[in-house]
């Protein structure tokens, strides 16, 4: 069954609906305003917003590996750890410089995590990332020069001349998360993104059309590392404290859960997963059992709704649009031709 659009209807639709960029811009403005309203003058809520944004950034990066390459990495926590530890000492040179250093450190860690992806896949690769992540955590825990298991405080004064309080830190995290999602969305529609996703679906087929599976896998792991490095650095800024145990294996599994529950391979999937996780953390009573529900939900979602919850949200929005805005894309202007 194919979908054919009547030309006259198509013209009417184009006139009636704003372009995608306008929708995206409006959504970004809404997110920024909402984040500001939530965090302005409310330190606790600002920390919650910042935490959600940091999770969204790291999880969006992980989606390059999980959603596009269709591999599992539990090394995202390690890349966050390295990014944070490398970026924080450069805070005296400015937050932007420190963030850049964190991104480079994350890139290197991501490449180290992805080195095995050149030769193995599946659970063998997941095992490799698990062991590398643990080794990184142990190194940072056991070497006193790096702060050891005790950790250290993190103090930042300002970013581009604006004093860093809880509100500005939260807004900085939200802006970084938005930039991360925009880059993900842009890459997704580009030839590069198509090539990476092709490697994830069928490396041999991708190789036959001159796409290098090795290069694509390494690049995806590296980019995931960049996101994690920056997210780790922001995490340190938000919490005001840096300790290796914070970025442990469980955080990496939670990142994986955010990507899967939100929706693998979609630009907004990890963001939705991060927001759902943050809201759950706030709503659920503080208990040692709280992660158990996330584990069970992860199992259920990956089995019964492997595309995550975003497609369901998308379907709901399309239905609403069909009902309230018939001329919009996917609305009533299309004829189904068998």
């Amino acid at each position, binding site marked *: 069954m194919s979908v054919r659009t009547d030309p006259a209807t198509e013209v009417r639709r184009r006139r009636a609906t704003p372009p995608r960029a306008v929708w995206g811009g409006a959504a970004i403005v809404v997110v920024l305003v909402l984040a500001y309203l939530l965090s302005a003058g409310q330190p606790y809520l600002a920390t919650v917003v910042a935490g959600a944004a940091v999770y969204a950034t790291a999880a969006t990066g992980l989606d390059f590996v999980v959603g596009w390459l269709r591999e599992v990495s539990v090394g995202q926590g390690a890349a966050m750890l390295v990014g944070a530890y490398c970026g924080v000492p450069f805070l005296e040179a400015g937050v932007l410089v420190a963030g850049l250093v964190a991104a480079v450190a994350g890139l290197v860690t991501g490449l180290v995590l992805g080195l*095995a992806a050149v030769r193995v896949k599946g*659970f063998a690769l997941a095992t490799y990332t698990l062991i590398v992540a643990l080794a990184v955590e142990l190194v940072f825990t056991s070497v006193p020069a790096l702060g050891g298991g005790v950790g250290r405080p993190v103090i930042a004064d300002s970013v581009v001349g604006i004093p860093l309080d809880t509100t500005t830190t939260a807004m900085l995290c939200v802006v970084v998360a938005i930039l991360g999602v925009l880059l993900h969305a842009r890459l997704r529609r580009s030839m590069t993104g198509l090539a990476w996703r092709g490697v994830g679906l069928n490396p041999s087929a991708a190789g036959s059309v001159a796409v290098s599976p090795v290069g694509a896998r390494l690049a995806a792991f590296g980019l995931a590392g960049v996101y994690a490095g920056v997210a780790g650095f922001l995490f340190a800024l938000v919490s005001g404290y840096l300790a290796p145990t914070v970025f442990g294996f469980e955080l990496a599994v939670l990142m994986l859960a955010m990507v899967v529950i939100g929706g693998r391979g979609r630009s907004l999937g990890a963001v939705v997963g991060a927001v759902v996780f943050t809201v759950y953390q706030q709503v659920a009573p503080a208990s040692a059992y709280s992660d158990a529900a996330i584990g069970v939900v992860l199992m259920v979602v990956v089995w019964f709704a492997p595309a995550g919850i975003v497609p369901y949200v998308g379907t709901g929005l399309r239905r609403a649009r069909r009902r309230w805005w018939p001329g919009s894309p996917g609305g009533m202007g299309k004829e189904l031709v068998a």
Partner: protein
Amino acid sequence: MATVIVGLCVGSIFALMACSIVVVHRGTHLVNFAQGEIAALGVFFYIQWVVLDGGRPVVAIVAGILIVGVLGLLFGIIAGRMARTGDHLVPLISSFGLFLATRSITVGVWGPGEPYQIPPLFGGDGWQLGGELIPFSYLFVLGVSVVCAGGLYAVARFTTVGLRIRALVENRDAAEVMGIPTARLQLATWFVGTALAAVATFLFFQNNYVVTGSIDSVLIPAFAIAAVGGFEHFGAVVLASAVYGVGSQLMSQYLTFAGNDVLSLVILVVLLFLMPRGILVAKSARYSS
């Protein structure tokens, strides 16, 4: 010499845990990253029944191992159905979900960082060798590991069930055509593999405090060792475990405890990077699920 023997004792625990991973993988081509957490449930069941409620140790151990085996079997049933979706990530990601759920429950019930101690099953001082004392508990660990590994080998080599499992490993379709109940055999490998992990966990905690999450210190090197063996080769797994155990014991004489752990893991990482498909494994071996 005593250091080498203690190293072999420690290595035997890693070998048993790594063998449990290999058993499951050979039979099902799946890996359960929550295997250690499920296995630790057996020990916590023992602590609850024996240490806290004063029950009988032997019954508690047998029951703990059986319960863990059944839990592994249940996950095997679920993972088998998940594998039918055709997406290899589904059972893999689910095992991480199971890990998160199990870890959370054990922390909730038995507390985070709460140290428990299992009374040693084999008391006494130890064996004097060259002026150094090798505790009997270590020798007991080595003995049980050898018996388990020997039993596994004997079952695989000399029994009909073992023959059928080997046929399943070689070619599942051909085994099915010959009338071998492959689905039931796969469930059996889930049960045996997870129960074996429970035995390894009991042995590990003979000489260590039981703390929630501390099983990671066995499970993660065991996964690395299983990977070094290509998730297929028992011989390579046993060899790598022995080298890891003895090596880490020898290094512990010169390095701090944490430094020793780091170096051991770094060596495994380098080994995995150089030979990601494992040692002693043919290039045609299968690695992805």
